[in-house]
């Protein structure tokens, strides 16, 4: 089996702030991390590899520093990686990004046919959840989103059985291979690298593909190929909530507990 996992390098969302004057994201000094959902997607692929044996190729698009996320993937068990890196790709929206990634997967397929492409449910910087389905559509793969786990692969029928996360439940589906699967974080716990594997990944060379390495229609890439335009970014206005300080001395704990319970149920939180 050949599995491809799409991994994106994103700014650590817990540390990104919006410049209140310019309305842009302040990215300076913000550390970059591997998109957490993508790492759960990788873990799902790794579990398939553990069980059935497979080759895992990690695919990322981004600036040269994005080799870090590929190395991290290799440290926990991915076999190979490709970074798609070219100024022509800069400024791509989800439409252009899914185009570029799908073209790269087509190139990979030429030498090594792909059975499953994994991606995170969404990236934590854009929150669109569009790139995974976009790739599936362009490649003509079947698509399983919000996947919680893979229950079985029937290689004879070329069918995969998977569980999807629904609101308040779970759906079991079958899909034809090749398939693209997007993964939620409840699916698994991402493993840690052993020291020898970590060191091996630090020393590994990541293959970088620029626009010359695979077939591309350049007008569909980067800013030019991106119909989405960000007009304005602003932090949501803070909710007008005044905290109430209650004194245990005067009212007693029971009364405070009752007041809190009432307020919580009134607000529909529970």
């Amino acid at each position, binding site marked *: 089996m050949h599995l491809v996992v799409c991994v994106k390098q994103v700014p650590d969302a817990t540390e990104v702030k919006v410049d209140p004057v310019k309305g842009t994201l302040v990215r300076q*000094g913000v550390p970059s991390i591997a998109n957490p959902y993508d790492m759960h997607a990788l873990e799902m692929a790794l579990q398939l590899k553990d069980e059935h044996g497979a080759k895992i190729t990690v695919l990322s698009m981004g600036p040269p520093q994005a080799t870090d996320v590929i190395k991290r993937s290799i440290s926990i068990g991915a076999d190979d990686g490709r970074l798609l890196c070219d100024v022509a790709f800069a400024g791509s929206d989800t439409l252009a990004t899914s185009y570029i990634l799908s073209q790269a997967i087509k190139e990979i397929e030429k030498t090594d046919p792909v059975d499953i492409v994994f991606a995170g449910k969404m990236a934590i910087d854009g929150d669109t959840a569009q790139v995974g389905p976009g790739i599936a559509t362009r490649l003509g793969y079947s698509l399983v989103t919000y996947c919680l786990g893979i229950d079985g692969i029937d290689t004879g029928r070329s069918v995969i059985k998977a569980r999807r996360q629904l609101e308040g439940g779970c759906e079991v589906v079958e899909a034809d291979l090749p398939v693209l699967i997007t993964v939620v974080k409840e699916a698994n716990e991402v493993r*840690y690298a052993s*020291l020898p594997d970590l*060191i091996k990944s630090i020393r590994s060379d990541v293959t970088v593909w620029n626009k010359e390495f695979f077939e591309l229609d350049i007008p569909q890439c980067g800013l030019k190929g991106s119909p989405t335009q960000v007009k304005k970014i602003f932090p949501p206005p803070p909710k007008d909530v005044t905290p109430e300080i209650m004194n245990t001395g005067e009212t007693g704990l029971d009364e405070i507990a009752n007041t809190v319970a009432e307020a919580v149920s009134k607000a529909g939180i529970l």
Partner: protein
Amino acid sequence: MKERFDVIVVGAGPAGLAAAYTTAKAGLKTIIFERGEFPGSKNMFGGVLFAHSLSEMFPDFWEEAPLERALVEERYWLLSEDSATTFSFKTKSFGQPPYNGFSVLRAKFDRWFAGKAVEAGALLVNETLVEKLIQKDGKTIGVQTGREDGDVYGDVVIVAEGVNSLLTKELGIHEEWRGNEVGVGVKELISLPKETIQERFNLEGNEGIAMRILGTTRGMTGGAFLYTNKASVSIGVACMVEDVSNECVCPNDLIDDLKNHPMVKPLIAGGSTKEYSAHMIPEAGFRSIPELVHDGLMIVGDAAMLTILITGEGANLAVTSGRLAGEAAVKAKENGDFSANGLSSYKEAMDESYVIKDLKQFKDFAGYFHSNRDILNLYPSLLNGIVKQVIATDGLPRSEKIERAKAMLKEKKSYWQLMKEAWHGWRSIR
């Protein structure tokens, strides 16, 4: 793990990186372990790096290293409730090569420094905690990390894990630090527009200022500081742990005291706090330095308690100690002897360097403050009171004002007491 290294460095701060850079550059197979996501991600210090220590390794490093401001002014403030007496020295020459010191943000600086060590050939392993030193027949032969298959063996381990060095404590090289040997420091990074900083502190271009402030610690042994960065100031306060626990003061209240002091408040007005951090600081200086060299083991930087608080030195001592330990490892490799004897050139070089000489010089200084509480409790306000009395022009004849000032002094201290305290103070740095 099967692979062996010549040198294993624990901790990618200034001391560890200086050691790793030195050994890797000399061709020794070097591995550095850092528990943070990347070097600098977990580190904290006040904010100043004196240039000399680094320029010995990287002449003209200021042309490429991520630095904040070149410090051209050193200002000392003695604060009382609403007054300040200031001593200050400023020179434009500190704003030019070879510079005196820089304010530095560690998240950027340590990363740059680590890049240098990696370029020189060192292997940097992040997000990996060294849990234990591996011993055989009393000799350190490797480290045990928290990862699977995580034991690594090497000829020498250089411990650069910072002030709370658990590895060396576990070996019994030193005891748990006592409350009068370490301080607790609290720091905020407050962002302000570049132009505001230039105006408020009378600075031009990339010039910066270091301020050291006494009198805001409620009489506890300690002091405060303020350093200017490009578009932020680092402001903080550090006090001896023993005092803080005896007085039951929350360190957070100390920084609030400082920020709300009428002399300090306008300097940071309008700024927003970007970072809040707290850390232990080695304070006892020379007296608590552990044995630096053991069989297969050397200790550098804060892990060896190398700081001089009164001059704000720490990072430079760390860099120099790391470099000297690195050089000793190179020598030991040439001679094929990594025993304490084979590594002894580290200790000898340290004794010869400004590091140990200065630490010796100031060895009684913190103790002097600690045992003479009046210095921080009484003197700032007394001094401010006297200066105010003498300076105020209020119709009284000067002779009368001087008599009054004398009376103010005498009310608190006899001349004999004053002379005694001054003598002890002088002795503590001689």
